[in-house]
């Protein structure tokens, strides 16, 4: 008996030893990826953020100037606030536009379902910048929107839509719409129709069914969609650059200018870190408050 137990124990030990390393071996590719493409750049970013300019262009020396964080943040506080305000508005608008759309595709589209899904994704086949420039034309002085408004006498020749906060928020909403629609669709599509029928059987009218059954069941999609919209929108600078004016610049524009106009890499790095941490904290709070077990 002892012999058998010993043999079993021995076997266990070797397999345990082998087993101890297997997960790490399997994790290697992922770890390698994370270290190379996430950890190293982040370390580099933190390193850069406390440096000061040297004698030559693009040359910096480490001086542990932690004041870079405060200075760059304080200088760009308006753009910071604006970024979060704009991306909040864009997320809200995208949700209001996407929900009926995703609902219709999931429940009412019948044989058109795939076609409609392709149409939602289709704009992705062209560049983000080109789409934004297209909106500059659409909302521009000779564009169709102002044309219609002028025909209806709702605008005169002095009315402009571009170069305004409205245009920036509209551009953000449009550009990130598919990020909202797809997760919403995914979670709506998964809802068991029998649950909705049951709600009807229990004398809930369609509104009540929607608010008590459909919407709660789609909340993972809402959560994922809002995150996927809010996070990139907060860091976006293309829309503010093309559709905005000097008073509508966002934090991305400031980081871009630090990098490419004033060659202030430390300031840009410090701002990037602050932006990253702010978004991280906001997202954590948000998930804590509204989080569900599963994301999509």
């Amino acid at each position, binding site marked *: 008996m002892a012999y058998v137990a010993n043999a079993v124990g021995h076997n266990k030990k070797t397999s345990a030893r082998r087993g101890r390393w297997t997960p790490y071996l399997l994790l290697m590719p992922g770890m390698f990826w994370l270290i190379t493409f996430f950890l190293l750049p982040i370390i580099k970013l933190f390193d850069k953020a406390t440096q000061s300019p040297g004698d030559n262009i693009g040359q910096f020396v480490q001086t542990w100037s932690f004041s870079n964080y405060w200075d760059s943040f304080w200088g760009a506080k308006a753009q910071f606030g604006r970024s979060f305000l704009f991306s909040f508005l864009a997320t809200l608008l995208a949700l209001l536009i996407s929900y009926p759309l995703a609902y219709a595709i999931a429940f009412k589209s019948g044989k058109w379902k795939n076609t409609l899904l392709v149409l939602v994704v289709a704009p992705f086949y062209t560049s983000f910048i080109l789409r934004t*420039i297209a909106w500059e034309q659409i909302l521009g002085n000779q564009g169709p929107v102002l044309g219609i408004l002028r025909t209806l006498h709702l605008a005169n020749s002095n009315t402009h839509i571009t170069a305004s906060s409205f245009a920036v928020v509209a551009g953000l909403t449009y550009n990130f719409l598919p990020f909202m629609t797809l997760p919403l669709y995914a979670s709506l599509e998964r809802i068991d129709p029998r649950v909705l029928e049951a709600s009807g059987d229990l004398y809930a009218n369609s509104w009540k069914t929607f608010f008590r059954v459909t919407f709660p069941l789609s909340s993972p999609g809402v959560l994922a969609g809002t995150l996927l919209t809010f996070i990139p929108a907060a860091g976006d600078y293309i829309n503010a650059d093309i559709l905005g004016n*000097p008073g509508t610049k966002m934090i991305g524009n400031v980081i871009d200018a630090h990098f490419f106009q*004033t060659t202030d890499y430390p300031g840009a790095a410090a701002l990037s870190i602050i932006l990253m941490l702010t978004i991280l904290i906001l997202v954590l709070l948000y998930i804590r408050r509204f989080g569900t077990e599963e994301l999509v």
Partner: protein
Amino acid sequence: MEKNNLSRRSVLGGALGIGALSLAGNLGELNLAHADNGTVRFANWSLYLDYNNKSKRYPTLDLFTKQTGIKTTYSEAVDDNDTFTAKVAPQLQLKKDIGYDIVVLTDWMDKRWIDSGFAQKYDSGSVPNQKNIVPFLQHPYFDPQRQYTSPWAGIIGGVAWNSKNHPKEIKTLDDLFAKENKGKIEVLSEMRDTIGLIMMWQGVDISKPFGEDKFMNAINKLQQLIKDGFIRQVKGQSYQQDLINGDAVAVIGWSGDINQLNLQNNTNIFKFNVPESGGTFSTDNMMVPVTAQNKSGAEKLINYYHDPVVAATVANYINYICPVVGAQQAMEKINPKAVTNPLIFPTDLMWSKLKTFRQLTAPEQRKFSTAFQKASGNA
């Protein structure tokens, strides 16, 4: 300085340089693979070299290859002085090939390259055609003996407008910032042009050593004009689109852009003036980076472009100020209409109104450009 982008390349370059930036990056990498001693790799601004739309070739480059046997690769890799420099500076610091044997940048940036040791001196006597450089540009502050740089083209910063939407001539900055133009004015994102014009409007000679207070006065003025809603955007080349479609009626812009706007739209409604208070003048210059793989080929190419006939051919296409003596005569055979165009061959009167922004020290550059970015809403 961002250049015109209305041709086939408008799609790429018009994207406020962002698209062009990634494109430039790709081109740069591609060119690395091509580096061999028989090739000169030339980085320039978009729409800055004669181009044949049908054959999709650059005729003067082809002629150069035919004459010398030296092959060339041409990239429109530069879309902004700061952006381009910020991109290649780390490699230049490490003396690693940046993928180009000639780069064309604006004078003040040339100075920074020379001071940082990023540019190398021409071999003595290797660019004999430098004798053809117009007297005005023979001994510039950034390179008094022309040992590192050779002028490619001159650029005037002034006021421009669409005469269809703004029939009245704009002669001064007061005319530009008139009440009726409120909200329909755009200014350049190039600090030295926009601030330079405002400073001259305020009576400051930008070529003389002025103090920080004078500069900041102009920044305050700009900030006020933005705050009061006169200026709708501070931008690069894309102001041309807005001039066409009426989102902007008047701008602070570049001479050559307006020439090209008229040519490409087959019209003459776009007008350009040097303001009475004065216009800014700058030059884009060819430099050989310290990391060049084919220095002698690069020098031959630079020399070639100072030949009057070649220079006139280029000027006829790009419509910027031609820096070569004799090109005006050569132009008579190429395009008689361009001979008297003061934006290609400025008159003495025009020269007298032009000033070049004085050299800034590195700390000044940092401080001033940060202030300018702040006024533009970017910081």
